């Protein structure tokens, strides 16, 4: 138990630090440019938009990089599921906007099933992430998964009951 923890703890900061270095190496120049030009750039729409776009790109790139490097395989699996849920929820919402919400029960239970499952999965992800270990002294990853299963059962029971 203890040595495993220690190993993992060792891994995470190093990964973070690598991400940090890569981020600074790739994104330091536009970063500096922004910080100097940001305040006067409010008036000049052209320069501000270009710099913020650049900045935005670097943010996204950094985010993707750090995610690719530091997230473990399991977390990626969870994230894939969460993405699926977001897509499913968005599709339902789109349908509701386009085709009307006539069986409102059905829409609500379908939509809240995705939303509820999303937040439960997000909670599972938070609780199983090593970096958050200190926040949850009483929740081991196994317990987190058991909780997740229990909550999902409750959620889907209510959804099925509500769908009519």
């Amino acid at each position, binding site marked *: 138990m203890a040595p495993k923890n220690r190993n993992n703890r060792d891994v995470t900061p190093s990964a973070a630090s690598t991400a940090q270095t890569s981020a600074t190496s790739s994104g330091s120049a536009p970063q500096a440019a922004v910080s100097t030009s940001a305040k006067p750039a409010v008036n000049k729409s052209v320069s501000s938009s270009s710099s913020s776009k650049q900045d935005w790109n670097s943010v996204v790139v950094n985010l993707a990089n750090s995610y690719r490097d530091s997230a473990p395989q399991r977390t990626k699996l969870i994230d894939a599921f969460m993405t699926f849920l977001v897509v499913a929820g968005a599709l339902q919402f789109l349908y509701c906007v386009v085709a009307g919400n006539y069986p409102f029960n059905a829409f609500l239970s379908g939509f809240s099933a995705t939303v509820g499952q999303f937040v439960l999965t997000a909670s599972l992800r938070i609780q199983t992430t090593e970096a958050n270990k200190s926040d949850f002294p009483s929740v081991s990853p196994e*317990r987190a998964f058991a909780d997740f299963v229990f909550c999902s059962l409750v959620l889907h029971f209510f959804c099925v009951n509500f769908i009519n």
Partner: protein
Amino acid sequence: MRKLQAVLSKSASDELVVASIFDRPEATRYTITATMSVDSLQTLANVGKGESTRTTLRVVILFLIAGAAIASRLFSVIRFESIIHEFDPWFNFRATKYLVANGFYNFWDWFDDRTWHPLGRVTGGTLYPGLMVTSGIIYHALRTLTIPVDIRNICVLLAPAFSGLTAFAAYLLTNEMTPSSSAGLLAAVFMGIAPGYISRSVAGSYDNEAIAIFLLVFTFYLWIKALKQGSMLWGALCALFYGYMVASWGGYAFITCLLPLHAFVLICMGRYSTRLYVAYTTWYALGTLASMQIPFVGFLPVKTSEHMPALGIFGFLQLLAFLNYVRSAIPKGQYQTFLWLFAGGTFGIGLAALVVATSAGIIAPWGGRFYSLWDTSYAKIHIPIIASVSEHQPTAWPAFFFDLNMLIWLLPAGVYLCFQQLADEHVFIVVYALFGSYFAGVMVRLMLTLTPVVCVAAAIAVSNVLDTYLSAKSPKPEDRLSDEATDAAVKKAPKGGLKSTSKPFVGVYSIFSKGAVVGAMTIYLLLFVLHCTWVTSNAYSSPSVVLASRLADGSQHIIDDYREAYQWLRQNTRDDAKIMSWWDYGYQIGGMADRPTLVDNNTWNNTHIATVGKAMSSREEVSYPIMRQHEVDYVLVVFGGLLGYSGDDINKFLWMVRIAEGIWPEEVSERAFFTPRGEYRVDDEASDTMKNSLMYKMSYYNYNTLFPPGQAQDRVRGARLPEVGPTLDVLDEAFTSENWIIRIYKVKDLDNVGRDHASASAFDRGIKKKKATKKRGPRVLRVD
């Protein structure tokens, strides 16, 4: 656990590693000092023993508290009998009987055609079923255990039984706040006997609040637990109990608003944590779905503004969690820009969406009751039906002291102590105290929701005082050397090296000050118990169906007019005879007399109530068509003039007039019921509208025959009545109870030779000639 640890320490070569697994300072001590020795096990066993006796003691005390809580609610059963009280409980009782007789599914789909005649009521879809289902489950459970208990007794004793559970829930909640276990026990005692809670939970008061307060406190406990541990399981339990609460009481909106508020305050204090995210989102996702299962609530959680704060905080937390994740992943400078772009954009879009949705009518604006919470005079102006209920009035300030006694002045002290520690759970108490005391000030009824937090905060304060002053050990004399002595008796003695890092140890030296403070506290507590018992026995234990009075020799006299009259209805009228009365008595007529009513305490249709109000407040010629149209067979009024019973219909009459005026302003006018000088009178000087109103006539019909001529007295309003009593043309007196509290009139059928009722009764009285001349002018056309 500890035995295992000892064994491990024997076998393992490296003790420290093993000890560090268990991560307890005393564990290391045990393993080091007592390696391989047997008496270490002995000492461990002794420690465990002390702990277990403590637990046993605690359990015993909690059981005693539950016993006291139940016992103090039994005054009414002992004094009167096992009877359902007041008004609303009669409906709950009737619904429970229906549930037990017809099963759950029939109950769920119950359409009741015996109320709100001729409209009927979709009862299954317009009630909170939690209470009935709870007692139904208890009933069936007891029957399977072959304990045949009458359903009425279960209903009567449900509230006291749940008050015991509430005390336990208060104990759990307080234990989350403070390490001192005495605080929890004190909170349990306070919760058990505080009059603010007893007022709604005496035996026989079979109302939604009976179980709802337990659910309220327990939901809060689960919420705190979920928040502290950041556990999905506790969050889900919190949601389940929240669902139960929604099924039981309309006051669930209090939780729906308080938990988001707590989360919001935490976020504003910069205390966002992943634990908050897990607890809140689990609660909201599951709890909202759970609440939507109740037909009466249905889509409200996504459609009304009362529920929007919870949704808003839910979305906000998603945002915060995402931002937090991003912050951990990218450098700080970039995060700033990201934050502004992202958060600003999302906030703007969300606000715009809310405004658009509200103005487009997708989300309903705040309901009337909620407006009246912000602006206390709102209801008085716009919704007389809400303002007419006495428990919706603003609280008079002595009521706080009456209902909570010394707890009310301990509340600020408890809140202050919470401020000193101010962990997440203490913020909850602070927020709850503020929120709760505001609402308790606005509406008498919401005193109930304030009571739990007052009990918890007061218990924290009292236990703090007692813990400080009850410790037998005085601080050591060398501590005297340090300064900071403010008093001869009280010294502060810094223990550690740095004053700022270690809490100063405050001790009390002299036995006298200890004794004085503890003694004073004990006296206060005893007085509190006395006050609670007195209030319970005198103010809250009257069933109001049965009245008690004292005879001249001091013996008790029971006034049982209500049941007498309802029994008369049950035995002397057809099964489907429609009874018209003011809505206060609708549930009682349905429950006790089992006869259809026009309006009842479920005031879902204001127009229908106004119709009854109009029939009561108009002249007979106007009222008769209304009564015929609604197939009214009997009219029931409550009259307290003989006995001095002030809660009668003449005193409620102005509300009938106001509600009727709200719908027919050109036909009913409140002003016409006052004398020219603006007085509300029933004697000779009463206005003609008043004297000719059906209500006035029904109340005082034949009343002066009880007295010598010209001596008729109304003891409620202290007025001498006109010498000639009113005459009734369209109604026949059918029944008047022993003390004249209830009077029942039968509506006459149409005259069988086609005259109108006025002339027919005039003919019967033998004044045909006079009538002919008199009635010629303003002849009234029969409308129907």
